[in-house]
C-alpha cells in the first residue's frame, strides 16, 4: 500500500454541449407559454360564461323563420282569435301571465306602444296568456287595462310553438309572416325605444306580401 498523498481529481470541466441546448430550450418554451396562456384565457372565459353568465338565457333559433300560426279562445269572452286572419300585417305577440311581476313592469309600455301604432291598419297586437287561471287573467286585465286582444294558451301549445320558456316574451312578426325580433324580459328602457323607434316603424313601412 502506498502512503503517498495523491492530489485531488480536477473538477470536471462543463461540457460545451450544454450551453446552446439550454438556450434553445428556453426559446421553445416561450412558444409553448403563448399557447398555454391563450388556452388558459379561453378556459377562463368558458368558466366565466358557465359560472357567472345567465344559465337561463336560451339563444333563440326562431328569428327569420315563419311564425307558427295559432288560434285560441280570448280571455275576455272566449271567442276565437286566429292569427292566420292577420296575414300581411305586422303582428306583435306578447306572452304574459297575471302571476308575472315583470309583466306588470312592462304593461304601461305595452299600452303606450299600442296607442302609438293603433291607428296604423297594418299593426296588430295580441297578448298570449301563459299558464294562468282565467279568473286571475281577467282580474289582471280589468285592473291594468287591455285595449288589444288577449288569447288563452290552454295547453301551452302556443308558447311551446314559439319556444317560450318564461314570461314576458315578445315577438314581432313582419308582413310576410316571418319572426323578425324576439324580446326576452320586460320591454323597458332602451328595448322599448328600439321597438317603437326602429323595429316596428321599419317593418310597417316595408311592402306587404306581393304574391300571396
Amino acid at each position, binding site marked *: 500500500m502506498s502512503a503517498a498523498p495523491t492530489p485531488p481529481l480536477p473538477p470536471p470541466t462543463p461540457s460545451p454541449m450544454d450551453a446552446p441546448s439550454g438556450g434553445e430550450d428556453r426559446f421553445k418554451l416561450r412558444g409553448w407559454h403563448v399557447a398555454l396562456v391563450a388556452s388558459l384565457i379561453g378556459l377562463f372565459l368558458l368558466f366565466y360564461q358557465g359560472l357567472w353568465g345567465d344559465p337561463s338565457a*336560451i339563444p333563440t333559433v326562431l328569428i327569420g323563420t315563419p311564425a307558427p300560426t295559432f288560434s285560441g279562445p280570448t280571455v275576455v269572452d272566449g271567442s276565437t282569435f286566429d292569427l292566420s286572419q292577420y296575414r300581411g300585417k305586422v303582428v306583435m305577440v306578447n306572452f304574459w301571465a297575471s302571476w308575472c311581476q315583470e309583466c306588470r313592469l312592462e304593461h304601461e309600455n305595452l299600452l303606450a306602444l299600442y296607442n302609438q301604432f293603433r291607428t296604423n291598419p297594418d299593426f296588430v297586437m295580441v297578448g298570449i296568456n301563459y299558464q294562468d287561471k282565467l279568473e286571475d287573467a281577467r282580474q289582471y286585465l280589468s285592473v291594468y287595462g287591455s285595449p288589444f286582444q288577449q288569447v288563452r294558451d290552454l295547453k*301551452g301549445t302556443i308558447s*311551446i310553438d314559439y*319556444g317560450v320558456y*318564461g314570461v314576458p316574451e315578445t315577438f314581432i312578426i313582419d308582413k310576410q309572416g316571418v319572426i323578425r325580433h324576439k324580446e326576452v324580459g320586460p320591454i323597458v328602457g332602451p328595448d322599448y325605444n328600439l321597438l317603437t323607434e326602429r323595429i316596428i316603424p321599419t317593418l310597417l313601412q316595408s311592402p306587404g306580401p306581393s304574391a300571396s
Partner: protein
Amino acid sequence: MTRTAFMVVALLLTGSWGALPVFAPVEARAAQVEETALDDQVREIAKTLRCAICQTENIWESQSVLAAQMRAIIRERLKAGETPDQIKAYFLSRYGDYILMKPRVRGWNWVIWAGPFVLLLIGGIMLTRTLSRWSASAASTPADPLPPLSEPSRKRIDNELRAYDQ
C-alpha cells in the same frame, strides 16, 4: 334505498295480484297495454329533452308546468303517428340545441366534445417531448469524455490493485 324498497313492494304486489287483470275485459286490457307502451315512448323522448326553466332536469323528471305541457305534446304527437326523431326535431326547431340533454356534435359544439381529447393529446405530446429531452440529457452526461487520469493517480490505483491481488 327508497327506490329499491319501492321495487320490492312493486314486485310483491305484482306477484300477489298478478292474477287479477285476467278478469278485466280483453279490450280494456289491450288499451292498457297500448297506453303503457305509449307511456314508455313518451318517457324515452322526454328523458332526452331538457326542461327549459330548470336547466339540469329533463322534462320527464321536472315538476314544472312547462315540462308537463311538453310531455302532453310528445304524447299527442306520438298518437298522431310521429316518430321520436320527428318529435325531437320539433322541439329542436323551437328551442335550439338548448333543449337537448345531449347537444348535437355540430359547429362550435365540436370544441366541447373534442376539447378534452385535444388537451389530452397536447399534454401527451408535451410530456413525451420533456421526457425524451430528459433522457437525452441523462444519456449524454456519461458520454462526456472524462479528464485524463493524472500520473500519480494511475500509480496509486495500480498500487492498490496489486495490494488487493496479494
